[in-house]
């Protein structure tokens, strides 16, 4: 095993200096922090990490985590501990669209395995990999609460349910044509695609 970032992460000071939330993102962050009592701003960490991930290219680099620590006035290790615990935070670069195919029970019972294989073949990548053009990353996920509409995949904020091969084709084509970064924080979720 061994982790992807065991102690040896590189930290680039000049990269770090460039990292700053846009005014819009900063306003959202401040709004989140205001939900908690004075001095409890650490509570905002999970939602703020989502904002940061969307803002800085879909993943959390050491520099970004360091920045988030500064914004929330907590220690960098506190950010790293949390970011590495939860599955939705990417600690390595990913494609613009991260496809997460649920594989637990009900989804398995309804064909999730073949959906994964189909996407692997179609994109010519394996689970965990990113396409050469940086467009798609394929992942498997554990139960996403879509058991009645299985099989399903999540891409950013969007839930794509009752998947068939044909539906997967449409989803991939649409995202590719759009060519934009898909984040959990997206407002324009495309559940009906």
């Amino acid at each position, binding site marked *: 095993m061994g982790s992807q970032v065991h102690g040896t992460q590189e930290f680039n000071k000049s990269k770090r200096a460039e990292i700053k939330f846009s005014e819009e993102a900063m306003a959202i962050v401040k709004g989140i922090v205001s*939900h908690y*009592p004075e001095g*409890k701003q*650490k*509570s*905002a*960490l*999970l*939602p703020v*990490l*989502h904002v940061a991930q969307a803002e800085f290219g879909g993943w959390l680099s050491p520099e970004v985590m360091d920045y988030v620590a500064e914004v*929330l006035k*907590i220690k960098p290790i*506190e950010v790293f*501990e*949390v*970011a590495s*615990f*939860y*599955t*939705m*935070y990417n600690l390595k670069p990913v494609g613009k669209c991260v496809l997460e195919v649920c*594989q*637990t*029970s*009900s989804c*398995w*019972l*309804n*064909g999730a*395995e*073949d*959906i994964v294989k189909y996407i692997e073949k179609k994109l010519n990548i394996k689970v965990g990999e990113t396409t050469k053009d940086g467009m798609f990353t394929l992942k498997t*996920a*554990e*139960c*996403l*609460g*879509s*058991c*009645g*509409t*299985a*099989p399903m995949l*999540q891409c950013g*904020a*969007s*839930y794509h349910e009752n*998947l*068939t*091969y044909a539906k997967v084709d449409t989803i991939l084509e649409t995202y590719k044509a759009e060519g934009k970064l898909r984040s*959990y*924080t*997206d*407002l324009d*979720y495309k*559940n009906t695609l």
Partner: protein
Amino acid sequence: MGRKLLIHNDKVPNIHTLEVYRAHGGYASVEKALKTMTPDQVTDEVKKSGLRGRGGAGFPTGLKWSFLAKPEGVPRYLVCNADESEPGTFKDRYLMEHIPHALIEGMITSSYALGAKTSYIYIRGEYFYVARIVENAIREAYAAGLLGENILGTNFSHDCYVQVGGGAYICGEETALLESLEGKRGNPRIKPPFPAVAGLWGCPTVVNNVETIAAVCPIVNMGGDEYAKIGVGKSTGTKLISASGHINKPGVYEIELGITVEDFIYSEEYCGGIRNGKKLKAVVAGGSSVPILPAELILKTAKGEPRLMTYESLSDGGFQTGTMLGSGGFIAMDEDTSIVKNLFTFARFYHHESCGQCSPCREGTGWMEKILKKFLNGTANESDVELLWDIQSKIEGKTICPLGEAAAWPVAAAIRHFKQEFLDIAKSKKFIDVSHYNRLNKITA
């Protein structure tokens, strides 16, 4: 048709908006509670209703509320557990997505009863779009004076916020949820102290499931006694069941507790029977953690009585021949399904979701997954069945939080009821996935 109290209006166009929700009687419980009842009276109605926690544990909600410590000058919190992640369960998502105001109404009424000036709705991160819907509904409620200072002109003020998670099943455990809400790793706390005494930021806190909180509205509206008339014995009221698997009509159903399992599976009102004319093989009745039962035991108890959708009837016979209502995640499997492979997906799930704090769960869940993988590879031996049994028994009850049991029970039940399937694979050194063709058919259609 059974009575519906929670999602009876789910098909009304725009019921997610405050305007339509109110036009259909929404926020009546807030009006009634804040204007005509004391907080203790609201709690009393909840106690009388017999409402039990809908997240899975089934603990009496009124009792849980009464444990809340109320020291002077210390804030109290209500936290809604919307971290729905138990495989097979998607009812909270349905409720929040379609009728978000039902949850917010419940949050206000419940907070009034508990004396909580602030509440949080912790929604699993993957449900980000659902969080948006709930946030919009909260904004509407603020604008209409249903949240904020002096709600509906009364002395009661309340703020309600949404917090999204980061992807971790364990945060459905209430103390892990609180840790996560404090911006930490979702490591369950060692109890005592319980959240009712020291919860969010060390303050007294009640954590309730989405459906539990939403159920407070009809209870206040109709009165606890009236609510308690629905159902059987200690299983009162209605329950949302998430139905999935090999049934004709998967989805979320609101049932009166007390209908028969047979009716639920086969009637047109609910699941509509097993797909493709297949026979039922097994059911996981209350989310992945609860013991799987073969068809004959889920339809009838060991005593031969019809099994009912109630807390008591489903657990009749203990774990030898019974199961649990749990979160109401109802997964039906047809005759072609491999119980071993389904169990593998559960084992993989618990391995993936173990927080890693305590050793039996951290090390044991992965070990069980690896052994089950051997069955799928056709490399398992007969002795592996005994080993699996022994490992699960050494996890169960030895861990900090119930994830240990949740990981152990499915393994134990699968071996208890379907041991032959394991042995057959071990003997033949071959795993044949009979249902593969059916699955492929569905997604290539």
